[in-house]
């Protein structure tokens, strides 16, 4: 049994006490003296030429302090893109400007045109209604394939076309892949849509800009997953404020799921306006605004082909994907359909030849960027659906077909540029067969039939790449940032510790699990360790939390910093006990001299570090504070196998999830309860994508799903109790904790299982349905059954 508060213990989340008692400190809880409020006047057309923005009447409205338009941001930088993709012909992607407020044109419904700052929010909103706009509406491009046609309206007049890039991966393999298809015994083809989603974190975005006239310092309070990244991007690329004059604070954040990684116009605006007006300026996003301004996720249209030999071995995969970028390039948008998607197309299988083509397209829609899983759910969905389809076409068991093609030897270099360090895919599949009770399925199907329902069983595997990322590698791939992580461990005189991490917790429970690691390493109670995050003024430069990287990268930095602390403490302990440093052992918070009964407590050593009366001052500095930066040498590769059982009501098409099981390999586990929680949440979002969620634009670029009346979020009664297991553990070989990351697995691994289950249910009664695009809403399933 692990010690409570140590590694492996399901320690209850300490942060939940403040969240559950209403004592969290979210950005909207921050109200500064003299604060003014901004309301953004946003475009209600998808595409238009902005002939005139007449603010004359509005400026005289009660309470108005100033109205800003695109003109005020001429000479100010645009919102930067953090990743440059090079296309299959060696050309860099087309990269349009992204002004803070629209200049010349509006390019999606929700594009900000003017910003009214007033004494109250209602006054700002009233004045915004008095602004007179002259917009010449232009034809909108919404459909990606139509956007690429000759003569299609251009989202950005200055670009050659609406094509951002045409990426081929691995381009050198293309001819060999085509050759393999030509000689394949069987080819399975599937065309599918991975639909556009809206992240919908519980807390909408908020930004409060502040300017201190006496110091000349700017501060931005914002709902961010990575305050240092916002400081870097906004300071260096938009507003020209050096880091030492700019502080970014992301306090308690109520969920992000990727949508709070990116640097948004409203953040830059509030920081800019606070200085211009010499008053704090606050923006609180409404839910309606969130639907049309938060970066959306997914939105791929894909054709995938799988080639098999006569023995059902996978010999090649070829994919053709159109990926929607929306109207502008959001911060990491170009990386999602490329390096976070193409590199995962091998999945869990030893397919020797793979070619991925991705055309990224500009349209008059909200920008699309990373959303829980980011590229990996898209890869997993198409691969696991096409394998299931192949199994049905070949009349073989879908599990057997997968097992036959599993990678079994590690490390394994895939044909798509990554090397899996460890894994055991048979083990997770074995575990899945056990926890999902496949043996009992036939009886359960019979029971469903008796109720007039069709029961289906769907399974899939997944692999993902977490712990982004080795900086030198991603630099070669076009990243304009490093992706290390940092930690400072500050030990106080009486023995308590503060760990300042560059990671950011917005629901993940870092304050609990990170403390467990440090407590275990030193052998002290976890209550002696405090985790601090979210403020650039008191944390070392770090890249934040996304891509399931926090424990693998941020946790590793923390381990390195703690190791430095322990090494130094041992030197001090050696001095105190007049022993050789090499003989000092640390156990349960006691330093002892090996082979003797001499010992000093952790607190004695920390006190000596700060009250260095009896101290080796000539050799060791006083104090006990260390910083480490950790840059991983590889990604980590969590993997698993998921199973879903559904019932379909054949009369209405309604699908209900009856059972769901997940067997994951996350390597070593710090807090099993938190890991289960992450998997539960991820599966909930995956089921949301599979059955409910869809962001829909009409042909004019009007958002048809702009509220919860039409955008279906999963509710508690849409999901069953899950069976999750993470006892299969092949520890990561290249980070000190042997951890892999668990934040996105559920969202990546669950959609194909759900769809495979529904197809199984329909085919069980002879319906020739081979695919239904998500979400599998009742009307879509019913429609498919009519064919």
């Amino acid at each position, binding site marked *: 049994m692990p010690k409570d508060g140590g590694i492996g213990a399901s320690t209850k989340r300490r942060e939940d006490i403040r969240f559950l008692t209403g004592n969290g400190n979210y950005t909207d809880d921050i109200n500064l003296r003299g604060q003014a409020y901004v309301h953004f006047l946003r475009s209600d057309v998808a595409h238009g030429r902005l002939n005139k923005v007449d603010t004359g009447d509005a400026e005289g409205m009660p309470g108005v302090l100033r109205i800003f338009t695109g003109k005020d941001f001429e000479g100010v930088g645009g919102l930067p893109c953090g990743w440059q993709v090079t296309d299959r012909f060696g050309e860099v992607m087309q990269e349009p400007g992204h002004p803070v407020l629209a200049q010349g044109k509006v390019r999606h419904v929700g594009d900000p045109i003017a910003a009214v700052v007033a004494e109250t929010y209602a006054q700002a909103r009233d004045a915004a209604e008095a602004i007179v706009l002259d917009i010449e509406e232009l034809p909108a491009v919404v459909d990606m394939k139509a956007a690429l046609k000759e003569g299609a309206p251009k989202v950005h007049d200055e670009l050659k076309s609406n094509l951002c890039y045409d990426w081929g991966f691995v381009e050198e393999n293309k001819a060999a892949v085509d050759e393999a298809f030509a000689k394949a015994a069987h080819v399975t083809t599937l065309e599918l849509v991975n639909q556009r989603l809206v992240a919908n974190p519980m807390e909408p975005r908020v930004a409060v800009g502040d300017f201190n006239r006496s110091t000349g310092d700017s501060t931005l309070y914002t709902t961010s997953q990575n305050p240092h990244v916002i400081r870097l991007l906004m300071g260096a690329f938009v507003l020209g404020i050096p880091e030492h004059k700019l502080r970014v604070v992301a306090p308690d954040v109520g969920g992000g799921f990727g949508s709070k990684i990116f640097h948004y116009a409203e953040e830059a605006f509030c920081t800019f306006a606070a200085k211009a007006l010499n008053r704090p300026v606050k923006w609180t996003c409404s839910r309606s605004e969130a639907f049309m301004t938060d970066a959306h996720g997914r939105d791929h249209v894909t054709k995938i082909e799988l080639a098999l030999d006569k023995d059902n071995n996978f010999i090649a995969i070829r994919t053709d994907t159109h990926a929607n970028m929306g109207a502008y390039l959001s911060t990491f948008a170009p990386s999602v359909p490329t390096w976070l998607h193409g590199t995962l197309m091998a999945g869990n299988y030893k397919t020797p030849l793979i070619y991925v083509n991705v055309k990224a397209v500009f349209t008059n829609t909200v920008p699309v960027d990373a959303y829980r899983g980011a590229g990996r759910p898209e890869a997993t969905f198409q691969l696991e659906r096409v394998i299931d389809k192949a199994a049905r076409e070949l009349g073989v068991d879908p599990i057997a077909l997968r097992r036959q093609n599993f990678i079994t030897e590690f490390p394994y270099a895939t044909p798509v540029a990554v090397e899996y360090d460890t894994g055991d895919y048979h083990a997770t599949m074995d575990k899945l067969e056990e926890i999902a009770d496949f043996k009992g399925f036939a009886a359960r199907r019979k029971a469903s039939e008796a109720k007039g329902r069709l029961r289906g069983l769907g399974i899939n595997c997944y692999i993902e790449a977490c712990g982004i990322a080795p900086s030198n590698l991603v630099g070669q791939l076009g990243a304009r940032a490093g992706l290390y992580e940092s930690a400072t461990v500050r030990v106080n005189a009486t023995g308590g510790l503060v760990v300042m991490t560059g990671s950011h917790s917005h629901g993940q429970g870092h304050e609990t699990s990170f403390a467990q690691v440090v407590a275990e390493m030193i052998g002290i109670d976890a209550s002696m360790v405090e985790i601090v995050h979210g403020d650039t003024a008191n944390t070392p430069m770090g890249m934040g939390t996304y891509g399931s990287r926090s424990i693998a990268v941020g946790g590793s930095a923390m381990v390195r910093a703690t190791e430095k602390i322990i090494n130094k403490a041992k030197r001090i302990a050696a001095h105190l006990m007049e022993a050789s440093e090499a003989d000092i052992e640390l156990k349960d918070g006691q330093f002892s001299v090996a082979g003797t009964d001499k010992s000093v407590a952790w607190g004695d050593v920390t006190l000596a570090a700060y009250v260095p009366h009896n101290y080796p001052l000539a050799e060791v500095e006083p104090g006990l504070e260390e910083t480490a930066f950790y840059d991983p040498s590889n990604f980590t590769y969590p993997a698993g196998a998921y199973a879903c059982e559904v019932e379909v009501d054949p009369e209405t098409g309604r699908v209900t999830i009856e059972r769901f099981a997940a067997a994951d390999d996350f390597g070593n586990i710090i807090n099993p309860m938190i890991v289960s929680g992450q998997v539960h949440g991820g599966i909930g979002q995956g089921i949301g994508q599979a059955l409910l969620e869809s962001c829909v634009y009409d042909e004019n670029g009007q958002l048809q799903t702009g509220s919860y009346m*039409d955008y279906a979020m999963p509710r508690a009664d849409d999901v069953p109790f899950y069976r999750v297991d993470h006892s299969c553990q092949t520890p990561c070989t290249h980070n000190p904790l042997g951890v892999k990351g668990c934040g996105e697995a559920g969202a990546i691994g669950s959609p194909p299982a759900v769809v495979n289950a529904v197809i199984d249910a329909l085919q069980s009664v002879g319906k020739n349905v081979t695919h239904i695009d998500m979400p599998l809403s*009742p009307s879509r399933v019913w429609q498919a059954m009519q064919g």
Partner: protein
Amino acid sequence: MYAFDIERPATIADAIKALGSGETQALGGGQTLIPTLKQRLAAPERLVCLSGIKEMQGICTADDGALCIGGGTTHATVAAGAGAYPALAALAGHIGDPAVRNRGTIGGSLANNDPSACYPAAALGSGAVVITSNREIAADDFFQGMFTTALEDGEIITEVRFPVPEKASYQKFEQPASRFALVGVFVAKYGTGVRVAVTGASEGGVFRWSEAEAALSSNFAPGALKGLALSADGMISDLHGSGAYRAHLAGVMTRRAVAAAG
């Protein structure tokens, strides 16, 4: 939301007086009106809040056995207190979520006549009488199309009288996002015949399915509906389902309602 004044009358008479002057709007439970105001899609100068009027609250039984529900009675109160009409109580108990049921009122719902709301199906399916501040209106005359009713300006629903049927059931197929009725069917069997009211489906709002009523009046069994189908013409077609799907669902929900009514 724009600024507005609000009045809180304590009697029906005071409410009518308040509604008679200027640009006013009655506020029931606010489950539609408040979101509309928040979106700035309506700008009444003055709201007249009906929730403080005691004489419009509560449930009782009339001498003829009809269940009388005050226009200001919340869905939660009906769910808990309309045991004499179980199908109606069940319908009320499945509107929205607890927050909606604790604020939303029967009068507000009927006056709004949302084409996807549940209560219009109950009122029409039961042949209820809508009692207003100055008259009685039969349900058959009350609903006049999507968001349109026989109510005149300044007229409020003070009570709804439901004849209690021998058997009844409401079957709702929920729209996945809003969980309003994508299609809801209320079936009620009275000594005088069977009534079938369909909500959620038609561009004309709630309607009676007369062919089904005739078939069920002679044989109150799911099998009696065999061969009957509604046309997709005039059915709502949107993101959540085509007109043909809604027409089909109306048939399924009707059969299920008959089966559930027993």
